[in-house]
């Protein structure tokens, strides 16, 4: 049987748990920045080709192939700058990987940013750090200052890395809302097209990627695509940080190979479900914007994009929430929906009004003793009226838990 754990040598984030130091010296002793000068002598085109071979996919939720996104980036000119934006507005409930990266391994991110910016021909990088992560923003700034002193590439002004702090808004994790927020406005998502890669920050071409993705770019380019492909399973190369929380004995952030069976992840690496696997009620595999899995589905599922989409859910951010039979699933669904009701930016009426309506309807139905098919039908009807009628993917995220929950209830009604 394949072992999906990652040994220290192969880890991208060697200090994720914070037991070692975070400073630039510590990062260097772990092999950081040693290959950087070599990488910066290569052709950007080569780097992009290597990235294409790696099959790297975004780790912020949507799972879009990184190299495909990057290949659309036009060359920058004197009067038309390009931007790279690192999305560190981690807000997906059940996810805290980016917080730990910035806190304990900030130089892995910075190295990734330098290499990514070099490949994309970008001179300015903005890291959008969630407002609540004050400590992490300060830590990251210290790390940037350290890197500025030691690394020629940053010293010579070839690249500027700036931190932009958010101020508490879930929707600002959506890439176009994030750009609006950097421009000092309220975080309302933009219509697409034009996509940010053509018209992004201040109207200029912009690439937006998650903290984990950009860190992994650095690791892939410095250690080579063959190393990356030796990890994970076919079609799902490399590693990923999973955040396991809820009713498990040992909740934690852990870097594992892609494609690990969900049951193995929980039983072997996280001390198992509280009260044993038989006490399992449901699992949310990728943050609350993904559908729930029943115990039998959870036994078959692997943590890969394809496997989870077979079960009508998604890997999202890799935030696994384990729900045992001791917790009230209905209460949890309601709490999730209240979150979306509160965080809707209010721009598109189907989302603003629809999710509130859906929330009330679910609350009303779940409180009923005799929950019937008609109730479930009504919830599905409302949800179908919202789906696909808004600018951004917020409603898709909000509807996934509802739809999967209703689907699973159908068998019992």
């Amino acid at each position, binding site marked *: 049987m394949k072992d999906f754990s990652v040994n220290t040598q192969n880890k991208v984030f060697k200090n994720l748990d914070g037991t070692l130091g975070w400073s630039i010296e510590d990062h260097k002793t772990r092999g950081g920045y040693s290959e950087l000068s070599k990488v910066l002598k290569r052709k950007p085109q080569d780097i992009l080709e290597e990235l294409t071979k790696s099959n790297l996919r975004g780790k912020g939720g949507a799972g879009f192939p990184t190299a495909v996104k990057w290949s659309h980036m036009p060359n920058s000119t004197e009067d038309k*700058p390009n931007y790279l934006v690192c999305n560190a507005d*981690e*807000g*997906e*409930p*059940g*996810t*805290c990987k*980016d*917080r730990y990266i910035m806190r304990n391994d900030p130089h892995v991110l910075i190295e990734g940013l330098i290499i990514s910016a070099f490949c994309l021909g970008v001179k300015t990088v903005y890291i959008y750090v*969630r*407002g*609540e*992560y*004050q*400590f992490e923003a300060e830590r990251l700034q210290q790390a940037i200052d350290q890197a500025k002193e030691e690394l020629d590439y940053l010293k010579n002004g070839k690249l500027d890395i*700036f931190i*932009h*702090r*958010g*101020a*508490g*808004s*879930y929707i600002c994790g959506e890439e176009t809302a994030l750009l609006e*927020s*950097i*421009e*000092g*406005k*309220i*975080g309302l998502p933009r219509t697409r097209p034009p996509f940010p890669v053509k018209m992004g920050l*201040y109207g200029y071409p912009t690439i937006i990627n998650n903290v984990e993705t950009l860190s992994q770019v650095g690791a892939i380019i410095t250690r080579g695509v063959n190393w990356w492909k030796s990890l994970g399973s076919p079609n799902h190369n490399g590693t990923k940080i999973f*955040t*396991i*929380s*809820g*009713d498990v004995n040992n*909740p*934690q*952030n852990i870097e594992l190979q892609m494609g690990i069976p969900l049951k193995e992840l929980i039983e072997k690496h996280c001390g198992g479900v509280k009260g044993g696997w038989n006490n399992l009620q449901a699992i*949310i595999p990728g943050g*609350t914007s993904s559908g729930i899995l029943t115990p039998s589905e959870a036994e078959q599922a692997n943590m890969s994009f394809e496997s989870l989409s077979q079960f009508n859910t998604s890997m999202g951010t890799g*935030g696994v*929430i384990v*729900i045992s039979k001791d*917790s009230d699933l209905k*209460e*949890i669904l309601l*709490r*999730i929906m209240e*979150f979306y009701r*509160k*965080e809707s*930016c209010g721009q598109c009426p189907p989302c603003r009004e629809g999710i509130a309506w859906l929330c009330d309807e679910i609350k009303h139905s779940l409180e009923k003793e005799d929950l019937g098919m008609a109730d479930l039908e009504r919830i599905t009807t409302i949800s179908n009226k919202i789906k696909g009628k808004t600018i951004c993917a917020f409603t898709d995220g909000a509807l996934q838990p509802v739809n999967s929950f209703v689907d699973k209830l159908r068998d019992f009604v």
Partner: protein
Amino acid sequence: MNIKVKIINELDSKNKYYAEKIKSSQKKYKWTEPQLKHIEEVKTKYPEGKEQSALLEVLHFAQDSFDSWLPVNLMKLVAQTLNIPLIRVEEVVSFYTMFHSEPIGKYYIQVCTHCSCMMNGSSSILQALNDAVGEVQNRISLDGLFTIQEAECLGACVKGPVVVVNGEYHEKMTPEKASALIKELKMLQPSSRG
């Protein structure tokens, strides 16, 4: 309600700390030299002509530098400093949850009540905090010290339940620890009776 009437009602509020804060916000706000210098530094992060980008950072700075909230007069100052219309500042303040358009207590306590923390007992922690704090009016406890707010996921899911006090994370909370925390913060205060 007419704004003037509202302010008078608030001044009559039983919570004298709230009333005091409203009253003292009627003044004209001014930056000191070092503060202005800091704002100029923030502006340099963004391209020329894009000063509005600095708005979030400057609002954080204004809120931290003055009374932990953003009264209209302070928003006016920020608008002036960045040379943008007041409405742009007001809408941003009302959109983002970290900006307070009403006074808050000395300690702003956020309790995460989302799934992972909820499963680990955040509701009993919220209860314990509310009990320990005592009566609240206009969102501030009557001793002027605390404002308690339920919060969405604060990114500490693996160490929940979490309570954040003025930005500082307290992880793996229990109701006992929560009551002790409030007690400790109350003890820190210089006694007003001498």
